[in-house]
């Protein structure tokens, strides 16, 4: 029953997004949309997915969009936008999809082919074969480890893509200028800086907890990486980008992103060299189950490193580009008047 309420709420938010003209409100609504779909996933017993959707869908994507609209302006001027051809196309595809749903198995029916063909083996045998309670992590890290490897490379590609588009050669800023920026920020964000100083260690601790708790409960490399990156982004927002750059220098972060992908690949290569197929953890150590545990632990660690460093790369490049634009504008209007 709860999921029907959540779905209708999602519908309301989606329609509101169409009507809204102010981009800030649209982005906030898309954050709410992410949170509502995360709570829908909890209602659907998909706890891992809910965790990721909340961290990524509601958290990071709203944050990145907010950074972008500080550069590109908040208003969306709607000159003549062409509803009719779009409406026609949308109605056709929608009709085809509705036509497709007529023969689907009913919602939640236990005898649907989905639950009878491949899934029972995961549910019944994953404890003997891999030995960790969280079946989703065992599928993610062992049965379909190559999918997760592909996905890690997707995140790595996004990080490199953002670097290729936005990264610029940095002129080293003088030390005293950083202190000036730091003081002026201190005066402005006094309360929230104190609260952040209290909270930061707990956020990082929670990220590590999520990282290693992935085998037993909801959690894993992705969620941990995003939470870790959120902590550092919070630090960068409040203590100034230049101070954050000194704490976490960019070249090191790029190195971690690359080594994360390489670590993941080397786990596969080691099992290859030990005689098994690629990503066959049984060959990682003499006992099969211990090999599986070791393999999953290493893979989650690699995923955590790469996701955290890529998210940091993306945010630092966005904020850096914005800072450079602001400084250009300041120089510009200093010269012009």
């Amino acid at each position, binding site marked *: 029953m709860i999921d029907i309420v959540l779905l209708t709420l999602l519908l309301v938010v989606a329609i509101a997004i169409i009507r809204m003209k102010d981009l800030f409100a649209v982005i906030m609504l898309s954050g709410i949309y992410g949170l509502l779909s995360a709570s829908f996933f909890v209602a659907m017993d998909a706890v891992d997915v809910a965790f990721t959707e909340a961290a990524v869908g509601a958290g990071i994507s709203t944050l990145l969009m907010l950074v972008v609209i500080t550069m590109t302006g908040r208003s969306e001027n709607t000159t003549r936008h062409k509803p009719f051809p779009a409406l026609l196309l949308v109605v056709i595809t929608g009709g085809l999809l509705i036509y497709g749903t007529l023969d689907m198995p009913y919602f939640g029916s236990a005898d649907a082919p989905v639950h009878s*063909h491949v899934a029972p083996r995961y549910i019944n045998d994953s404890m003997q074969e891999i030995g960790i309670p969280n079946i989703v992590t065992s599928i993610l890290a062992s049965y379909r480890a190559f999918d997760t490897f*592909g996905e890690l490379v997707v995140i790595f590609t996004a990080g490199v893509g953002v670097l290729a*588009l936005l990264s610029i050669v940095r002129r080293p800023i003088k030390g005293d200028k950083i202190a000036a920026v730091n003081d002026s920020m201190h005066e402005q964000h006094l309360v929230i800086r104190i609260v952040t100083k209290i909270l930061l260690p707990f956020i990082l601790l929670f990220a590590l907890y999520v990282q290693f708790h992935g085998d037993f409960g909801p959690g894993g490399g992705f969620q941990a990486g995003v939470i870790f990156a959120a902590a550092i982004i919070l630090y960068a927002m409040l203590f100034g980008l230049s101070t954050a750059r000194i704490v976490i220098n960019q070249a090191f972060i790029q190195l971690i992103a690359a080594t994360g992908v390489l670590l993941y690949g080397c786990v*596969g290569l080691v099992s290859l060299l030990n005689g098994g197929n690629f990503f066959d953890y049984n060959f990682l150590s003499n006992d099969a189950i211990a090999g599986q545990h070791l393999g999953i632990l290493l893979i989650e660690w690699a995923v955590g490193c790469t996701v955290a460093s890529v998210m940091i790369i993306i945010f630092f490049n966005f904020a850096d580009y914005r800072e450079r634009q602001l400084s250009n504008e300041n120089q510009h209007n200093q010269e012009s008047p």
Partner: protein
Amino acid sequence: MISHLPVLQVIVPLMAAPICLIFKRAQLVWLFSLLVSGLTFLISILLLQQVMTSGVLSYELGGWQAPWGIEYRIDKLNAFLLLIISAISTIVLFAAQTSIEKEIDKNKHTLFYVLYLLSLTGMLGIVATGDAFNVFVFLEISSLSSYALIAMGKNKRALWASYQYLIMGTIGATFILIGVGLMYQMTGTLNMQDLSQRLPEVAQTRTVFTAFAFVIVGVCLKLALFPLHHWLPNAYAYAPSIVTAFFAATATKVAIYLLIRLTFSVFGLSFSFTTIPLQSLFMALGLIGIFIASISAIYQNNIKHLFAYSSIAQIGYMIVGFSISTVTGLTATLLHVFNHALMKCAIFLALAAVMYRLDDVQLNNFHGLGRQMPLTMAAIVVAGLSLIGMPLTVGFVSKWYLLSALLEQGWWPVAVLILLAAILTVVYLWRIIEVAYFKQPLVDNAAVKEAPILFLVPIWTLTIANIYFGIDTRLSVQVAQAAAQSLFGLTP
């Protein structure tokens, strides 16, 4: 190590990409990626030999059996595509460093090579995998790296072209995701081999019909088939010329492979061509695509735009061959995949050389180029002739098989239309040749010298391949015929 070749084919470039990011010096990274691409080419040759001798290879990743784990199935069709992609990527890499010196600024060369290797990995991953969801993941890898590569173009319109390509590509990929989800819902499995066995029972349901429709539309978006081709001309015209050379010869071929794999291996011949009027639909779309693209190619004065539209027309030829749905028809399509890769790569590499010398590829830059850059211009002429389908060139072979497949079915009006379209190709090629050879060079590009050696080597290897494979068609025809027969299920 021989039994691990299928996975090494994808892992070698994949592991090379992060390693490249760690080296900072561009010269070193260029040589390293050239070496890696050569190694991938070698692996694909060994794979092709193995497949031709011992039939289908199956490689279970993680040691789990097929429908539970992910499985790599390499048959003649995959091996043929893997060979084409890795060969083209190796040849294009020869000219990469000299070309990007002028087109991409210094500190981004390493990032260029990382993205290049990642898009190579994505394409090899799509072609090699036997798991439906894995296709979506590797499709995203190759598309994301191609958006970033296109956006690195010097011209500011590259950004806008890349953005449009991103929106269209993501919609296409999500359509494929919806199709895979619907197929999974009705059969419960993701492995393509397993799907092909379990789909016939549920084939008559409306959900499987919708799944087929969504997957085909998603693939056609990636294919730039006629109504969905708007992203291709700008993306190819404003991207760095090396990127255009690589993608023109490989990206659409991977989408053609997906189309063939889905209609023949996953959904089965009977379902794809009888329950849905795919045959006449694709025949119509292919023909309209050929004519409209060729006509709009004539009116372009940016030569990259011109050859991008001619690529859309050539894809039209492949779709017409595919829609005949006979063994010779499919052989014609596979042949044209191979030949078109050779032709287009030669042309776009030659354009990269012109771009290197003249910094622009408008028609008026081509004035008198025949005398100033004789070798490059000669390469364009030879590749253009094989585009038209002159005898003794590669284009003639694929046109010959296409026409014989059409006449075999007795559709002689379509054959006449194909010949008419060849005349359109002559028109837009003549515009370039006439300007290049019979006009005096403009005063400001009088001091233009021949393209550097690192350009001429790949261009001329491709041009000679254009001619060699036109005469000795043993390799291309034999593999294409065997792949077509295995898809039709009548392996000899």
